[in-house]
């Protein structure tokens, strides 16, 4: 039988018409969280721009900021999936530390011959990270041991192995230059620099460092392409929904949002271009963010993770293999923890016993600031990324201001609490 034979379809239509305006309002409310987060980040940036008398947005500092915090954001991508699926991973800081130590030992101490090539070592390390994730995920998924306990054990175990590997309190280094590029390198300018203002030459015939204005043209091109793609895909998604009679958000709101985010992105890209271009680690991060947005929004596996976190019994009874899915979430977390560990080691140029110590808390905080629910089932990749940047900008800004590290923790704690309280309050109101 066809649709028409369903009893009383008219009532449904009538209700639709009535609720028309309410859709727009509810769309605004649902999107408010997302906007609110981005606005909070911008507000924090502007605040520190003033309090650090303009240091925050200086190209050198921006590069530093990215290099110091990228590992948090990389790990937050994995942590988002872990938290959405209804679990937690406390071991990521220790796993990162262990992998950094492993990488350093392989490249510097152990006589591995051609195997000590940075690229080979990195790949092996990512595989080891995946194996660690699988080992922890196995107990969580198939034996239903609470993830809090399994990963708390992992946190102790891998910190211990990390320290043992490095032979007590010593550090291992220096790491090869090729490896350090992962964190401290910049993308090569394939197109060539564009000199807007030639650098000043002093009386002695030497150029003054920092004078003049030269743009890293490849960076500008990548930035423009990224912004155009962002606007294009946003517009296309809108068109699709409109074609089916669903207004996602008022057009003006969409335009303002797109313009603000694009302007911010272009401003940052410009700043990078005046220095040495985009850091390699920023590119890695960007690609990963795009990948995880795609996986969570468009792929069946992402959808299944959300369903599992929202109601695990219903997911099982819908034919979702929740055990295997949980295992995969933890393997993914392990790989990203390993990548985080490599980034930390590459930035420091050596492996130290305390590498990544306590970073699990920053990672988890980033995800929760980004609006994920501790109960599982709710959370966005972009939220976690913005949450990570909020933490990063606060770290960086307060350091420049000369705020004591102790008080930095207090402020970060308050921001985390405030963000979640705001979230819960908003939800209850809606």
């Amino acid at each position, binding site marked *: 039988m066809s649709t028409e034979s369903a009893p009383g379809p008219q009532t*449904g239509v009538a209700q639709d018409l009535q609720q028309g305006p309410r859709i727009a309002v509810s769309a605004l409310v649902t999107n408010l969280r997302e906007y609110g987060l981005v606005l909070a980040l911008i507000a924090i940036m502007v605040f520190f721009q003033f309090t650090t008398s303009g240091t925050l947005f200086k190209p050198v500092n921006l590069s530093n900021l990215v290099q110091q915090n990228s590992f948090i954001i990389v790990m937050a991508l994995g942590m988002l999936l872990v938290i959405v699926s209804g679990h937690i991973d406390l071991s990521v800081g220790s796993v990162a530390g262990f992998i950094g130590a492993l990488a350093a030992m392989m490249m510097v101490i152990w006589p591995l011959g051609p195997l000590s090539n940075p690229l080979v070592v990195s790949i092996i390390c990512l595989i080891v990270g995946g194996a660690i994730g699988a080992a922890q995920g196995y107990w969580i998924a198939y034996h239903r041991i609470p993830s809090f306990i399994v990963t708390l054990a992992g946190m102790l175990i891998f910190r211990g192995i990390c320290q043992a590997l490095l032979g007590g309190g010593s550090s291992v280094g220096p790491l090869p230059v090729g490896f350090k590029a992962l964190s401290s390198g910049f993308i090569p300018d394939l197109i060539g620099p564009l000199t807007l203002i030639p650098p000043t030459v002093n009386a002695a015939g030497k150029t003054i460092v920092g004078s003049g204005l030269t743009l890293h043209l490849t960076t500008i091109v990548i930035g423009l392409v990224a912004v155009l793609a962002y606007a294009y895909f946003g517009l296309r998604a809108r068109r699709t929904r409109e074609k089916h009679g669903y207004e996602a958000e008022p057009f003006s709101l969409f335009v303002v949002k797109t313009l603000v985010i694009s302007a911010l992105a272009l401003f940052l890209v410009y700043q990078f271009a005046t220095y040495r271009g985009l850091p390699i680690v920023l590119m890695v991060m960007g690609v990963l963010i795009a990948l995880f947005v795609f996986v969570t929004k468009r792929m*069946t596996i992402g*959808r299944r993770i959300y369903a599992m976190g*929202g109601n695990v019994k*219903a997911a099982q*009874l819908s034919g979702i293999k929740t055990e295997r899915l949980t295992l995969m979430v933890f393997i993914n977390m392990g790989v990203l923890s390993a990548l985080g560990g490599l980034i930390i080691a590459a930035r420091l140029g050596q492996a130290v016993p305390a590498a990544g110590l306590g970073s699990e808390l920053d990672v988890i905080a980033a995800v929760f600031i980004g609006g994920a629910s501790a109960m599982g*089932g709710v959370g966005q990749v972009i939220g976690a990324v913005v949450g990570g940047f909020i933490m990063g900008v606060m770290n960086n800004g307060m350091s420049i201001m000369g705020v004591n590290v102790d008080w930095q923790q207090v402020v970060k704690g308050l921001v985390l609490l405030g963000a979640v309280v705001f979230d819960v309050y908003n939800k209850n109101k809606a």
Partner: protein
Amino acid sequence: MASTILEMRDITKTFPGVKALSNVKLMVEEGEIHAVVGENGAGKSTLMKVLSGVYPSGTYDGQIIYRGDECHFKGIHDSERKGIVIIHQELALVPMLSIAENIFLGNEHARYGVIDWNANEARTSALLKKVGLKEDPNTLITNIGVGKQQLVEIAKALSKEVKLLILDEPTASLSEKDSQALLDLLLEFKRQGITSILISHKLNEVNRVADKVTIIRDGRTIETLAKKDISEDRIITSMVGRSLDDRYPPREPKIGETVLEVKNWSVYHPIHAERQVIKGINLNARKGEVVGIAGLMGAGRTEFAMSLFGRSYGRRITGEVFLNGKPIDVSSVSKAVEHGIAYVTEDRKTYGLNLIDHIKHNITLANLPGVSRHGVIDDLRELSVANDYRGRTNIRASSVYQMTGNLSGGNQQKVVLSKWLFANPEVLILDEPTRGIDVGAKYEIYTIIARLASEGKAIIVISSEMPELLGITDRIYVMNEGRIVGEMAASDASQEKIMRAIVRGEGKAS
């Protein structure tokens, strides 16, 4: 003549969309055992919740007169203080605490918050003696069987100086022997002057101990019978005596070949490994046929369906399943779904829906490959599928982007139905498809069932509402205590026949 201990006058209780009780009257005399009987959903438990203050005074109309005073209980504490204690069907004991700790939970013998364990134990021993339970007061609840747990609940009630003891289906999960012991205990209490209200639909038990029986049907008091008038026939007639009006859409069944055949299906309890929950069930369903499974709560119907659906319940599952004559493997949910079996759960909120996600995502969840290619979801296709099914099942929502947690029960049920319709099954098992939804939505669900049958699907409906089964099915299996105890064509069936099959099966199974 004995004095009246309790009178409930014209109790009316409405839930959104449903009138659960209307002008119910109940008169209980001091020192008697008063049975309250009725079908599932007749309103017995609601009435007891009104009495014990679970539904506080003001949320219902009518009067409660207890020992001569009108009472306005604001909560369970108020009624307990007056000596009214209710023991629920699901026991409310803390498994990892001892018997003594459970009995005095929230009511400990203590000074300044420091518990006097000796006093607690001594009193517990005395109470356990009264109920005839030979266990150490320090034994953990988890280490004693359900029958003994029931006795602990009763001991707990005695500790509160109970005057009126209410037992809600106390023998539902007990063995025959434990049930007998419990009934004997009730008779012993009667000699001591404690009044009891016994809610049950086991008529042989009612016959044995009750002094009076009040029959409730559709939220109304039908009649109260005195001891001399109590007979099974009389009770059954009163329990089910209503006509089938046009609450069910008309249909002309076109029944074809056998689609699903289950042979010798047995299942053991997931925790109590020695308890067999399903005992050798044989059952079949044909193309275009609506098959009902009748039975009381706890008969094992849900357990049977869930064990069949990818072993989602139980252990040591044995038996064979055939689809269109070929044996199929249903050892996991995804395999069962692949073979075209779908199961719509009894408890849609716990097992059916992701309440924090919207309608669209819920509808496609069981068949994501149907809206995706290489693991990438096609947004457009998903949206049109969701809208299509929203129209077909007439889900009332502002859009498919509405959270399922904010929908009414009937609309939630339609979302779960849509999810399984989109998975395109050959056999659809519906477990209590209309529980807790209003009359209008019920009709819509029946219409969908009729339409699916006419499209050639085999449909199995599990329901505790007998009129519903008689109204929408072609053939009815009657289940009791894990067995099929009867099979009848719906045209030959009647509520009396089903009840008789259940009541007779009761004796057989023990």
